[in-house]
């Protein structure tokens, strides 16, 4: 399973601060941070610890199995962000 960030994310970085496995990106200072409209959770790395849910001030994070219907798109969106990112990193390298 994984946790998922929905479009109501306001890019407050409290979740990044508490994530024990550093799976929430982009981070302040990353080249794509300013243009990102929200933060995303890497489903390959997330360990379902719930820390980000506690930290989020606008309740924008859900466990995959409890994601409301209107945010169902966010599961693919989070994964896709990291898929595109790694492509870019490979291309840049």
């Amino acid at each position: 399973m994984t946790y998922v960030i929905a479009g109501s994310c306001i890019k407050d970085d409290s979740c990044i601060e508490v994530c024990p496995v550093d799976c929430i990106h982009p981070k302040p200072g990353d080249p794509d941070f300013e243009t990102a409209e929200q933060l995303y959770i890497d489903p390959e790395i997330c360990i379902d610890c719930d820390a980000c849910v506690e930290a989020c001030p606008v309740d924008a994070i859900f466990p995959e199995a409890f994601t409301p219907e209107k945010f169902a798109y966010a599961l693919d969106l989070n994964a896709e962000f990291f898929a595109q990112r790694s492509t870019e990193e490979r291309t840049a390298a």
Partner: protein
Amino acid sequence: MDLFERLPTPWGLLRGGVAPDHQEIKRLDDTFDRETLARGCRLFGNVEVGVDVSHEELMRHYAAVIYATGAQTDKSLGIPGEELPGSWAATEFVAWYNGHPDYRGLEFDLSPRRAVVIGNGNVAADVTRMLVRSLAELERTDVADHALEALRQSRIEEVVVLGRRGPAQMAFTSSELRELGELDGVELRVDPQEVELDPLSRSWLEERGTFTARKNVQLVREFAARPERTDARRRIVLRFLRSPVEIRGGGRVEAVDVGRNEIVQAGDGSLRPRPVNGDVETIECGLVLRSVGYRAVPLPGVPFDERSFVLPNDRGRVLGADGEPLPGVYAVGWIKRGPTGILGTNKRDADETVRCLVEDLAADRVPVPPDPDPEKIVALLAERNPDVVTVEGWRAIDADERQRGSREQRPRVKLSSRDELLAAAKPAAERPTGP
């Protein structure tokens, strides 16, 4: 630390800007409260700096003043007819439906069948949603009662949203755009031809497009491919590469003349819209909401950069005419960097300003105020203004609004006149007894 606020209620755009149908974002007020008022920060609400108290007076009582006044006015289009009745700044509509006391008297005529929203940013998305949402949805929000009543009578059937650039350059976030396409009972229509990218935009998107830009283009393609709906209550039409050239009407808005643009590469490499001469169409409508950006206004007693519409500053230290920091004066948010970024952007922005303040304190660069007694400012304000809203006053307003809301299964029912707010802020013993 004390918080000065021109309105009787704190939290600025969280209360007065964020759309009522985005209640999850409004929950941020808990965090704001926990980090400030709940930690002993005093509130001086209904106090206007420059009217009730001057900048110089603040500097006499405080070591540092941090301006966080935002960008309060809208940019104009600079086209004929902009001032016709029925043509509004989207921010006026926003302030009105959010119960801002200075805007509650505005009268929006929602009897026309078609409205035109000019702009492709998130405020344009907000006002569009508010025009097409069903009453059942609106009745569960904290939309101001006067706005709810007007929206109940609304006869708007179609909202045309004009973007001067193409789908690759939209300023919507993809989540706002997606939401426009998923509203209950609302058809979203996009002309497949307008979704075709020009060669410049196509190569930009492939080579340098952001994740959001790619998502946006993908979404409008999906929208354009949808079959037409006949069962929709209302319709949103997204138009691209279109700029208004004139708003027309005899005494009030009757139509907008819209010119077509093409995308060209500017000298700095950026992609810009350029009008295609002679290609003008007329869209009949009775309401125009203009949402093409914001501007800050100068504050009395502090320098202002008339070109960038911000307080001249270096990482939040406000600069004097000589380019040197004014000791003890700081800025944060839109008045510091201009109207860009989303809510969370301000956290990093504030962090930068506060770091400067802490550095200045450590280096003894912050002036010692002549009269630091924290009770002096209270006495001064009481002399000037009998209706200062304190933390207790705001808590009373908040409790009153939430209680009214709980009776109607709404998050709150906003008090939206200054008189109502000030009455609710007074201790029960001082309130006039009513029926």
